[in-house]
């Protein structure tokens, strides 16, 4: 076992939040090491193919997936530098003010310890840093004013435009989607070509993945990225009041120790609790930062109600971006479908480039078809098919959890179990959103339309290390600093006490930006 020279910060996971922390900490002059379990992907590795694109997702996961709605882990997860943000769709909707005080306003769920106003300046800052295209003014029908986005909205295509009339007729206004993509050249990165391969990694740098944003900044600032480095434990001092670094296994499966003044956990909402649970000591018998017993609890996922439609025109299904062209918060009120027994926000998007294969490909639009019927469908649908998607929110439920399980991974670390079931209000919202999607498709004049029903999908991942005001009810404060160990920080969607219905990465960036600025400002007391 080798022990590496102590650094200021070791960051566990080189995805969205870890990359941002690394960029800002190097700017502040800190010596940073990022440990990433997967490969050190380059832009040239991002082949435009649904088949080859699967390489940037994990093969074999250290989690058992249980519950009524088992979590669809590998499709959502990242593997390698960039993390899941290497293949995200770069939809950048914000959370809205009503996302932050669900318990206070409705008597269910949880509150964030911060409000929208606390986060708003960081949304604006992130937009200027990574590049966001959209129409901020148009969004102000739903949210407080902020700065304009640095780029105008993206180009739209008929596969998005065809929905507008139908959505308007059911009372849903659409505005240009906010996306982390370049509608124009931006900071030396080119404008998007609208070829629709965002989801397998954008190799031209038009989409703001960490390789061309925060991770590039971090590397320029001197951060060291160690790929194929799998962390298994966070280490503490004898008193148990400080973390001292992490234990990890390198590409040759040899054990290493990286000592650091501060440890930032940014290994995603699932792996962070697994690691902290596996780091238990006699001083922290339930795992680090877990005196509340809530570590690993309140896991949440989004779900989507999709509506497929075929129009009697060429909608250029293959063109555009995989992220949305249009978005709407018109069903974002938590009670918007109360009459259906539902609770929670719905975020609606229209317009997406469709490819043939993989889970989101249009071959899966009719899972019941196979044989010559499937071949006929592919030929008949290719010209006019498009999809409308409504993302829904579930409430935090303490029973949705991550816990240590029997069995071990290749490094001898215990596996974990993710138990996840949607509650009745989420199921009701999912069903109600299907109904509205069909109404919109009919009003839009679609030739054929149907619901994309199957098993209720699990999309994105939240919770497990929630933020709050005290150690009795949460793991970390609103910056990500754990309540119990001052130099142990957490970043990413695991901090979210509720999940809203918006795609999360913009909010992950904003929360991380706020957190890292606090870490830098408090450095003396945190790392001392």
């Amino acid at each position, binding site marked *: 076992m080798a022990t590496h020279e102590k650094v200021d910060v070791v960051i566990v996971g080189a995805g969205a939040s870890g990359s941002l922390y690394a960029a800002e900490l190097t700017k502040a002059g800190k010596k940073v090491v990022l440990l990433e379990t997967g490969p050190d992907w380059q832009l040239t590795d991002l082949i*435009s193919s649904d*088949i*080859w694109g699967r390489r940037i*997702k994990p*093969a074999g996961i250290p989690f058992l997936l249980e519950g009524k709605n088992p979590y669809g*882990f590998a499709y959502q997860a990242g593997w390698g530098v960039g993390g899941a943000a290497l293949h995200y769709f770069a939809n950048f909707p914000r959370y809205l003010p009503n996302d932050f005080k669900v318990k206070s306003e409705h008597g269910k769920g949880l509150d964030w310890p911060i409000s929208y106003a606390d986060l708003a300046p960081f949304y604006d800052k992130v937009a200027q840093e990574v590049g966001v295209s959209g129409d901020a003014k148009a969004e102000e029908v739903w949210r407080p004013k902020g700065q304009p986005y640095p780029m105008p909205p993206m180009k739209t295509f008929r596969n998005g435009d065809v929905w507008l009339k139908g959505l308007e007729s059911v009372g849903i206004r659409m505005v240009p989607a906010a996306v982390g993509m370049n509608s124009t050249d931006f900071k030396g990165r080119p404008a998007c070509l609208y070829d629709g391969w965002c989801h397998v990694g*954008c190799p031209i740098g038009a989409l703001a993945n960490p390789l061309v944003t925060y991770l590039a900044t971090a590397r320029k600032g001197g951060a060291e990225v160690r790929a194929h480095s799998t962390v298994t434990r966070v280490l503490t001092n004898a008193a148990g009041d400080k973390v001292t670094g992490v234990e990890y296994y390198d590409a040759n499966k040899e054990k290493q120790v990286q000592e650091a003044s501060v440890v930032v956990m940014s290994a995603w909402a699932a792996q962070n609790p697994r690691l902290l649970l596996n780091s238990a000591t006699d001083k922290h018998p339930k795992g680090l930062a877990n005196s509340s017993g809530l570590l690993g609890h309140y896991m949440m996922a989004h779900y989507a109600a999709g509506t497929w439609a075929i129009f009697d025109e060429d909608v250029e299904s293959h063109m555009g971006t995989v992220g949305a062209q249009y978005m709407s918060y018109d069903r974002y009120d938590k009670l918007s479908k109360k009459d259906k027994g539902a609770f929670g926000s719905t975020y609606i998007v229209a317009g997406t480039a469709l490819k043939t294969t993989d889970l989101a490909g249009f071959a899966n639009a009719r*899972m019941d078809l*196979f*044989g010559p019927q499937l071949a006929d469908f592919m030929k008949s649908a290719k010209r006019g098919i498009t999809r409308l998607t409504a993302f829904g929110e579930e409430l935090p439920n303490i029973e949705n959890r991550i816990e240590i399980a029997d069995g071990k991974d290749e490094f001898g670390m215990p596996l974990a179990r993710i138990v996840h079931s949607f509650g009745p209000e989420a199921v009701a919202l999912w069903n109600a959103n299907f109904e509205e999607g069909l109404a919109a498709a009919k009003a839009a004049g679609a030739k054929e339309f149907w619901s994309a029903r199957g098993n209720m999908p699990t999309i994105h991942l939240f919770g497990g290390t929630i933020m709050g005001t005290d150690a009795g009810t949460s793991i970390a404060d609103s910056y990500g600093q754990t309540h119990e160990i001052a130099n142990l920080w957490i970043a990413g969607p695991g901090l979210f006490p509720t999940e809203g219905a918006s795609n999360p990465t913009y909010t992950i960036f904003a929360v991380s930006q706020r957190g890292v600025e606090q870490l830098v400002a408090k450095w003396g007391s945190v790392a001392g």
Partner: protein
Amino acid sequence: MSELERRALLKGAGLGALAFSVGGTELLLTPRAARAQNVPFKTLTPAQAEALDALGETLLPGARAAGISHYIDQQISIPADEALLEARILNIRPPYANFYRAALGAIDKASRAHNGDRGVAQLSESERHAFVDQMRQNKVEGWQGPPGPFVYLILRSDAVDVVYGTMDGYSGLGIPYMAHIEPTKRW
């Protein structure tokens, strides 16, 4: 060939074709070409490959000629980290060969039980279509193995991959592929 050399070969090839072993030498071929050249199977038995070809063709015409059995054989014979199968993103635990063995075993057993001891490759096209339809709906009596609808999802996805997921597949459908970085050999 060492692990390092094999990775370099893959990288140098632009990651388009797959590495098949022919006469002790690794060649980069599309599954369609591997089938045309009768490249020997590494992991699948001849009976399993025959069943996969038959099922693939029933799931999507053209899958047999596109090399579905060679695609799966090659993919379950390499380290899981390198695999491109839809199984990877559907949380199947590696080695992926175990899943395919279990799935094909369940199919064979069920087919024989309901069709006079004939394996799925020995069924007529209409019989096989009916069998797949039952499997899709989890209605095969006495089924023992991974859930039938999940097996349907995976094998159907493999068939779609080799028929419609390639540059040739897009071309056949008349959809512009528009790659930023092209897979080589139109794969």
